């Protein structure tokens, strides 16, 4: 019984929360209509509707949950009715209910349902009344069968549709973050490009053969001094090695 209550409380909070959202969105919609109806455009209009309806569905979801205690088994029971205004009440209801007095309570608690809906109820009621119980049951089962049948037809069709649409758009990944980082690091600071031969004295110190090889003579003779010097390569290599020996490598790891 205790946890029953607790559970109930939770549900109420959830519902309340939903309601507040719903309220706000509807309010926003109304304001939109009244304030900027001059330049409201169709898409936003529809979006607002979508928002409202989503809130509504959320609400119904909550109520449909089976662990939600049956609310209809509850009745609203006024405890105290007073004529004097109550600040707590006011800010509780955002100033809509200043006092909880006997004259507003009935109307406010909607003791009677909305006439339109009530009338509809009536129709159904009496329609149901002139029909025997088991016949009713038959209809119900029939109805359920049909509905469930239709439901799974629809759901099947839907998932097929989704499958083929997915295959069509082909959302396979075209790039990988890891590769990006690898490549960027390589370009940026030669990660994974240095070969160990580099460190310590050795031929690795020299400009690698791939680039020192005789390059095509640049247009115009003035490119050749490089070549001339290319001949005097070996000694320089030796020296650089000496240098490298007594210099500590900046990227030592």
């Amino acid at each position: 019984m205790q946890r029953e209550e607790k559970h109930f409380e939770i549900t109420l909070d959830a519902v309340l929360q939903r309601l507040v959202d719903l309220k706000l969105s509807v309010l926003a919609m109304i304001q939109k209509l009244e304030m900027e109806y001059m330049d409201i455009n169709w898409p936003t209009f529809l979006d607002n509707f979508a928002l409202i309806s989503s809130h509504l569905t959320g609400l119904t979801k909550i109520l449909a949950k089976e662990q939600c205690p049956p609310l209809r088994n509850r009745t609203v029971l006024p405890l105290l009715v007073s004529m004097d205004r109550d600040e707590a009440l006011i800010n509780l209801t955002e100033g809509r209910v200043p006092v909880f007095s006997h004259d507003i309570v009935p109307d406010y608690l909607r003791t009677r349902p909305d006439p339109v809906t009530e009338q509809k109820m009536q129709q159904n009621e009496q329609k149901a009344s002139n029909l025997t119980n088991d016949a009713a049951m038959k209809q119900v089962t029939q109805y359920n069968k049909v509905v469930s049948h239709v439901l799974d037809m629809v759901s099947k069709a839907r998932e097929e549709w989704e499958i083929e649409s997915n295959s069509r758009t082909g959302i396979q990944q075209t790039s990988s973050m890891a590769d990006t980082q690898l490549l960027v690091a390589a370009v940026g600071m030669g990660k994974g490009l240095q070969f160990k031969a580099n460190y310590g004295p050795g031929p690795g110190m020299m400009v690698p053969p791939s680039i020192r090889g005789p390059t095509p003579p640049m247009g115009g003779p003035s490119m050749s001094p490089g070549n001339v010097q290319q001949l005097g390569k070996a000694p320089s290599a030796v020296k650089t090695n000496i240098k490298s020996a007594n210099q500590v490598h900046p990227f030592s790891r």
Partner: protein
Amino acid sequence: MGVTVLQPYPMPEGKSGAYIIDHLGKRLLSLGATHAGQFLVDCETFISTPQHGTPTRAVHVLHNSECPASTFSIIDNGTGKQVALVADNIFDLLMLKMTNTFTSKKQTKIESRGARFEYGDFVIKLGSVTMMEHFKGVLVEIEYKPCITLSYCWEMIREMLQGFLSINVGKEYPSYFTTQTIMNAMGQQQLHKQNDIYEPMDTIKQYLEQFTNYRKHVQMHSAMGGTVGPVMMNTVVGMGRP
């Protein structure tokens, strides 16, 4: 782009550089050459901060107003090996990036600037060399445009030098062009420069040669000169001179 020969003009005693330049210019004009703008060749030298075990390296950065888009640089690692480079002007900014390693020797900034003359296929430049605003001498640059190897046109250039500028030069090729042997991987190698195809870099190298001489000169006159080693090192000494 032709062949260029750079010739220092022997300074007669008691004649100011300005006078010489003026004199030569007048002569050229009177002989029918036409004045065609100015020119400037400057050279700045960067010295590597000495590190034990490594000889001091010097990077000479030169510009030639004839090649406005290029920066020429020649590195001289203490062991006599030189590497030449031609690059965009941006290279100057790159040099500034390594000021920690290569410091500019402002005192040795040297330049040759003056007037350009054209005479038919010849271009004659009369440059007065100044280092730290001090006049150092006169360099005569003479270019023969239609030809690209010196050995074919040396005689003409020589005649031009003698006839027009009355600089008497010997029949043999100027020192820069004479056969030089360089040491390399395949041992000794002879280079006959006068037969090579001439390149803008050669002009620059000639200038560097002359500039180095002027700096040496400074250093030799300075009392405390005479330290052995790379030239650049002791030009520093000569900076104080008027």
